[in-house]
Structures are given as C-alpha cells and as structure tokens.
C-alpha cells in the first residue's frame, strides 16, 4: 500500500489516495472520490530521480503523486518492472561513481580532442575544394586590411625583387597553390608575416627592414609556404570548430555561466595545435634552406632578431618557445 495524492486531470484539487501494485501486474488505486485499476503496461510510472516525488499517470492524464519512492521501487521489483532508469538512479546515489565518472569524462574529452578532432578536421579539409581556400584567403586579407594592416611604403622594385624570390621558391613546389606575395605596413603588429589559405603570403615592411640579407626573408617566406602547403589555417579553423562543437555538445546543458569555462580547453587546444603547425613550418623552412645549399643559420638569425626586436613577443606568442625554434 503506497500513500499519496490523486489528481483527476480536471481540476487541481488533491484527493488523498493510495495505490497497490500486485504481482499480477495490475495497479489498483483508491482515491477519496474514485477507484481505478489498470494493467502496469497501461500507466506511465516516472523514473526515479533522487527523492523527487514519483508519479503514476493514467491514459487520460489523471495522476497519482507520492513521495514514497522506496515503496514504489519495491512494488515494481516484485512485479518485475525494472529498466535502465533504475540502474541510473543507483549510480547517481554514490559519490564513488560520480568521481569515477568525473575522471572518465576528463580522460575521454582529452582523448577526443587530442586524437579524435585533428584527423577528422584534416579529413574534412582534404574533402574541401580549393575554392574554399581561395574564398577564405580573400576574406581573411580583407579583414586584416580593415583591422591591422596599412598600405606598404616599400619601393616597387624592392617588392618586385622579393616577389621574384617567392616565385622561384614555389615554382617547383607543384602543390597546386596559387602563391602571391603581399606587402603591408604592420604598425601595431610590427615585423610580422602571415600565411592565408590559397597561398596569399603577407609580410610587413618592418620585417623586410629588420632582415639583414634577403636569404633571411626567404627563410620567413619558406616558413609561410610551409603553412600554406599544410593548409594549416583551414585545418586550425576546422579543428576549432570541431572542439567548439564538442564543448557545446558536452557542456551545452550545463548553462551559460560555464561557457567561459568551456572556452579554456578550446584555447589550450588551439594553442597546442598552432604550436605543432609552427614546428612543421619551421622544419619546412630549414629543409628548403638546406635544399638550396644555404646555411640554416639564416633562419636562426631572423628568428633571434624578431625576438629581440619584439619586446612583447607578439610574433612568438602562439609559437613554440624561441630556444626550441632557433639557436641564438
């Protein structure tokens, strides 16, 4: 016998009531003003969640509500009415299970982000037509021009000479990218270089000014070519989208306050991947120098000069530590 209150789905007036679930799987209800009976299959019995009141809902919406969760469970056990929800409730009772779940969540999220997202993003990147790169590249340059960069003040012949150097460097690459060298004044970003998808490479006047030999500029160009060849910006974009989607799926139910917390792993992962890509581009630059029979010291010299010039290390912030990249 389980005591509770009955609501007839017509008014909000409660009626004291009790139910009985027999081994014959028939539920009998005796309320103040009515008596009902129904087979267990024909009523909805809410899953147990903590000590939230349990409800038995009849087909017409009438409802019996009781705080006696244990009695309901016992009756259901006798009638052989179990299910996944019962197991869930048991798990939710124990701190040990909660802590184990916490550890598993941390481990699984890390594994997904580390080993799941990058290959997936790379597969998507491979499937993307080159026209996507071109579109993103053009939009990216427009955005940079609007926000950070200003028109170049480098004399035309100097520009042409450097463009020639990039052309010689990439002619033999045969990677299907349409390389183009753009010059801009960096001002706030100082000596800097950017690689956009589709092969647009931007270097700032300040960087050209900082270099003592053209081979040093070539080392930087080769680094950026490395980014373009690996389609790094597109892959970063896709990986970020993947991690964000994952964070949303996992934490979406948690609430808005934690979206801030969700941003932290996204940022960490992003920094990690971008450092991996920098290493790859550095390696490409060194390899190119070696291939040309040039000393790798051109790369080191340029890196060290960049680091020295840029007190805030703006250029290096998303990059691996300098000691690891170049020997000064």
């Amino acid at each position, binding site marked *: 016998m389980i005591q509770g209150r009955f*609501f007839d*789905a017509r008014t909000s007036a409660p009626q004291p009531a009790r139910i009985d679930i027999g081994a014959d799987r028939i539920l009998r209800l005796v309320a103040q003003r009515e008596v009902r009976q129904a087979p267990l299959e024909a009523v909805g019995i809410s899953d147990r969640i903590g000590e939230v009141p349990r409800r038995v809902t009849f087909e017409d919406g*009438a409802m019996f509500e009781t705080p006696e969760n244990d009695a309901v469970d016992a009756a259901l056990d006798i009638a052989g009415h179990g299910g996944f929800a019962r197991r869930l409730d048991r798990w939710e009772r124990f701190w040990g299970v909660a802590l184990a*779940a916490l550890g598993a969540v941390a481990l699984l999220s890390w594994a997904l982000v580390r080993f799941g997202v990058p290959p997936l993003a790379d597969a998507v990147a491979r499937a993307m037509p080159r026209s996507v790169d071109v579109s993103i590249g053009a939009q990216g340059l427009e955005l940079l021009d609007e926000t950070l960069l200003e028109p170049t003040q480098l004399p035309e012949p100097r520009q042409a000479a450097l463009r020639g150097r990039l052309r010689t460097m990439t002619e033999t690459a045969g990677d299907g990218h349409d390389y183009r060298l753009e010059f801009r004044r960096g001002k706030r970003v100082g000596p800097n270089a950017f690689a956009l998808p589709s092969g647009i490479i931007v270097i700032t006047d300040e960087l050209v000014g900082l270099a003592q030999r053209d081979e040093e500029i070539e080392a930087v160009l080769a680094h950026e070519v490395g980014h373009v060849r690996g389609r790094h910006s597109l892959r970063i974009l896709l990986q970020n989208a993947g991690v964000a989607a994952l964070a949303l799926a996992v934490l979406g*139910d948690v609430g808005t306050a934690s979206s801030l917390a969700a941003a932290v792993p996204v940022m960490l992962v992003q920094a990690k991947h971008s450092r991996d890509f920098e290493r790859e581009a550095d390696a490409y630059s060194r390899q190119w120098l070696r291939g040309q029979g040039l000393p790798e010291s051109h790369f080191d010299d340029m890196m060290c000069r960049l680091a020295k010039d840029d007190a805030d290390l703006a250029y290096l912030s998303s990059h691996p530590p300098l000691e690891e990249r170049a020997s000064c």
Partner: protein
Amino acid sequence: MTDSSPATAAPAATRTHAFEFRATGGEYFRIWIVNLLLTILTLGIYSAWAKVRRLRYLYGSTSLAGSAFEYHGEPLKILKGRLIAVAVFGAYAFATQLWPKSIFVLLPALILLMPLVVVFSRRFQMRMTSWRGIRFGFHGEYPGAFVAYVVWGIVAVVTLYLLLPLWLYKRVGFLVSNTSLGTERFSFTAWRGRFFGFYYATLGLMTAAFLVLALLGGVFSGAAGSQDGPPSAAAMVGLGTAFVAGVIAVSLVVGAFWERSFTNAAYDGIGLGPHRLTCRIRMGRLLWLYVTNVLGVLLTLGLFYPWALIRRLRYQFECMGVEGAGSLDEFAAAAAPQASATGEAIGESFDLDFGL
C-alpha cells in the same frame, strides 16, 4: 438557507503559499556528471535524455502547496529538434565564415525570425510543464511577439535607450499574460514606473561606481608616478590588477542589483485569478551568492557549477510565494491543444530559455 454557499461566506483570509525547493548541490552534481559521461560515450546522442533527467529533477524538486512541478519533455522529440537546430546553426556559422558579408542578409532574417522562435519555444516549454496534473499553456502569436520584441526594441534604440525599460516591460508582459495554468490566464499588472526606476538606478549605480574607480585609479597612478620619474613596472602591474579587481567587483554589484530589481519587479506583477506571485529577493543575500558562486566556480575550474545553480535557485524560491484569497485547488484543465507535428518539432529545436 445555510451559510455554507460561497456567496454568503465571510471573505476568506489572505493566505500565502510558499514555494519549496528541495534539490541539493551534491545530488544535482551526481546527476550531472553521470549525464555528462553518458553523453560523451554516446557522442552527444544521450544529451536529450540528459536534459529530460536534469529538468525532471529540478522541476520535481520545486513544489508549491505541497505539490511538485513536473516536466514532460520527451527525449526523442528533443533529439529531433536538436538535430534541426544544429543543422540551422551549422549552416549559419558556415555561411558567415565563408562569406562574412552574408551576415548583412542573415541578421535581418534572424531578427524577423526571432519572435517566432520566442513563441514556439515558450509554447513548448509551457506545454511541457504541469502542476497537480494541470498543464501550463502559452497562447502568444507572432504579431504580438513581433510588437513586443522587435517594434518596442526599435523604439528603445531610437530613443537612445531612454525607453528601454518599456521594452523590458512589454516583453515580460507578452510572455506572462499569454501564459495559462489550465483554463486560467496569468495577468501582468506590474507598475511601469518600477521598471523605469530600477533601470535608471542601475545606470546611476554603474556610472557612480566607475567614476569612483577612475578617480581612485587617477589618484594612485599619480601617487605612484610623482615620487621619482615614471612609475615602476611592479607598481603598474599592481595598479592594473587592482583595476581589474575593481571592475569585477563593480560588475558583480551592478549585476546583482539589476537581477534582484528585475526579478522582483517582473514576478511581483504576476497574477493568476485571485492569486498574486510575490518575490522579495534581497540585495545583500544575492550579492553574497554571486561572490561565493563566482569564487567557487573559478577555484574548482567549473566543477562547483551545479552547487552554484542550486544555491541560486534555492534562494530564488525562498523569496517567492503565492498570496491571495481562495484556494489553489480550483484550477481546471484546458482541453488538450491540437498542435501540428512540425510546430512541435520547431518549438523543440528552438527550445531556448528566454526566462522572463
């Protein structure tokens, strides 16, 4: 004649029914973490079931006059709705990434769509909620939502936000006065002046706080610099930290003040037949909750969040009650509305929480 007929009975004394909230942070945390694990293991599919379990816990832990609220959302429908939402959002994100200019087309479309989203999601939320076996309902339609959300929004912007309180008032009014419990409609009778009052008080508080902050900043940086030459790097860092701390403190105070005033004003104006909702959140308690919750969430890398939410909700319900003559036993169920399947699916996919 006997004196038992309602017409001749002495007017019933005004009664206050308190809300009760029995959820605990620990219990909610355990539900949340098990949900999270199953969601990850099923690559997100379980999230619909997780949502239902989480909301059933929160609704079921909230009771009025001895009866708990009930959430009726169905996981499969929610899953379907979420897939639609993900597709729409994905298309939008993709379009704006590839062609940033397309936002100029998509944004107006979104603004026109927004009232529809409000109507559908509110309708869904209300229909999925019941108390004592009586379902809530929402009867607002697109034109009303368009006026409350878009037209009054434009008025607020055009008047340089001087009339922003009126926009808030219209939005709350639209949501509340179109909501029903069974056959009984809610009414919204809050005083407009109260909305203007707390809006301008918040603006004043914010201005005053930042003026004080700027003044202090000026005094200290002046003091640091005047001793000998430019201030030292350490002094600047200290000053910067103090400034950031000041800004955070001010936003917590202003945020708590705004939330307290808005919630009180909105809920206090809600009526249901002879009953009236009351809400008396106190500034000191709310600010204390804000500060401790923020610290807790930061210090535990977000793990404190379930406790923070439960503490906030518990305090909210502690401050609320239903007051009035007459009994809460006389609400009648409305005929079940005939909703189109597509409408339901759209409502579920846009099941966003607009609150009040």
